């Protein structure tokens, strides 16, 4: 059963706040949560043959690490609050992948934290949150 609120999880404080906000709302409205972590990856990158041969193994390691370090604690927190929880981890472009996950799970809203970068930082580097706002097909709640 798919969750109704999608929460973007990474290792930042912002994402913790986003998760908490989503948990509160989910409890109040009796909805469930899908927590998702996107491992940044592009199919259009350049590698040595060595790296290609190792890639499958690396990918498994990255998925395991993400599950253990990020998603298991987050899932525990959601379940502790008595909310149903689904877990998704995927490789790809962070904002685009989050939108895909939101669409495929039928999410009502996406919750994402904000890093609090300076204006110059935002201008130069952008952020997942700002990209997401531009391209999401589902309402986005940015939790400061």
């Amino acid at each position, binding site marked *: 059963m798919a969750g109704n609120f999608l929460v973007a999880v990474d290792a930042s404080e912002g994402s913790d706040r986003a998760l908490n906000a989503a948990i509160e709302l989910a409890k109040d409205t009796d909805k469930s949560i899908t927590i998702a972590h996107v491992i940044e990856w592009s199919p259009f990158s350049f590698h*040595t*043959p060595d790296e*290609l041969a190792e890639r*499958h193994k690396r990918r498994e390691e990255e998925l395991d690490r993400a599950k253990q370090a990020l998603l298991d604690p987050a899932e525990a927190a959601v379940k502790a609050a008595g909310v149903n929880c689904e877990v998704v981890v995927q490789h790809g472009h962070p904002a685009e992948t989050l939108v895909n996950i939101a669409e495929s799970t039928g999410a009502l809203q996406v919750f994402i934290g904000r890093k609090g970068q300076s204006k110059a930082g935002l201008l130069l580097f952008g952020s997942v949150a700002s990209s997401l706002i531009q391209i999401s097909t589902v309402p986005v709640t940015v939790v400061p």
Partner: protein
Amino acid sequence: MTFLNSAKLAAKFFLAFALMALMPETASAGIDAAINEATAPIAAAIGAFVFFKIPVFGAQLPLVVLWLVIGAVFFTFRMGFVNIWGFKHAIQLVRGDYANPNDSGEVSHFQALATAVSGTVGIGNIGGVAVAVTVGGPGATFWLIMAGFLGMSTKFVECTLGVKYRNENPDGSVSGGPMYYLRKGFSERGMEGFGKFMGTFYAIGIFIGALGIGNMFQSNQAYVQLNNVTNGLFDGLGWLVGLAMAAVVFAVIVGGIKSIAKVTEKIVPFMAIFYCVFALIVIFMNGSAIPEAIGNIFSGALTGEGVAGGALGALIIGFQRAVFSNEAGIGSASIAHSAVRTNEPVTEGMVSLLEPFIDTIVICTITALVIGTSQVANPGFAGDATGIAMTSAAFETQISWFPIPLAFAGMLFAFSTMISWSYYGLKGWTYLFGEDANGQMIYKLIFCAFVALGCVVQLGPILDISDALVFLICVPNILGLYILAPIVKRELDSYMSRIRSGEIKKYKN
């Protein structure tokens, strides 16, 4: 062996070379010459064996080139001209139209293509073409393009087989390539003993051959261009430049200092585009010479005026240099492509169609036109320069400063090719001697030593040895491809019918 121990071993190894630094210049030039004298007869002997020639219509036709030509033509017909109609599908695959989102994070088709192209686009695209035009006349360019076109089919067969018969190791990594498909494929067809022999023969061939085409030839030409551009600053110091290059290659393949390789791999595609853009500029600057240059290409191809062996001579050279450049028939690209985690071997075959296209039909042709138009506009522009020095001179006639970025580009192309080929050679080595770390270290050290050696020997013997070794491994590879072709055709037909029926999902566009 720890990194420290291997570094110590390597240091002792290189000290032998570096002792030359204590010698006066005349003595070090003497060492260069002595090595040349020693290697030239070996090169001649190996060459005579591999390129056993038969006289045909006044030309000397190496049997191995005939083998390659017939192979490429046969595969083109047998696969129903997949090199023409498969092109569009290849682009779709590389773009990611058929990429299953659940597989994101695995090696993508683009990545496999980029890695393989990075390995094949080497200094031969700049220097080898010049050799082709010098020896075979402008007509060689026509046959070069034809070889590129037909070679697409050969690559298709190789890379499909590479994925189909790869080994998936318990630790999750992949080992694939001709040694695997030859052994397993022949076993499937009931020729197990022969298959084992072929696999072993190929493995030996590739780990030795890697020392030529993917190593000595690259470092040699990179050094020549560097020397050229600095007006002879490095005369007689081939061993020093060689050592420096070997040290960098060592840092990457032994020290695992991936950052160097990562930077190179990223820059190479841009350098290739940069090179092509400027080549096109030079060609257009020689605009008035274009029609005549193109005319020369066609007339040279058909009449072979002034070329030893006539039109057939031009064909032989064109094919030889094309194979050297795009590696179709050598089987090396199938080692890179076998890493893609796909259940459809044919997809990698399709994607690999693009390599001879990019490498030969685009880049080599552009180089040939730069030289051709320069020759028409300024006959004798190069003096007696050969190889990359000639290409450099051609650019110089229009853009006086271009030899400098060309040297830089050449160095990068050479370097990325050396990294890729060290991997291919290593795979041949580990096929025979196992994946043991110490064993791998030995091969890597040998490889680095040859990087240095390449700068010390002259172009002639190097090219001869490289050529000979590479064409030697074409023989078992193409034999295997002939015998396994029906399997590939079946896979292709099955794949295409599933594409048409929609059973294979298109995710985008």
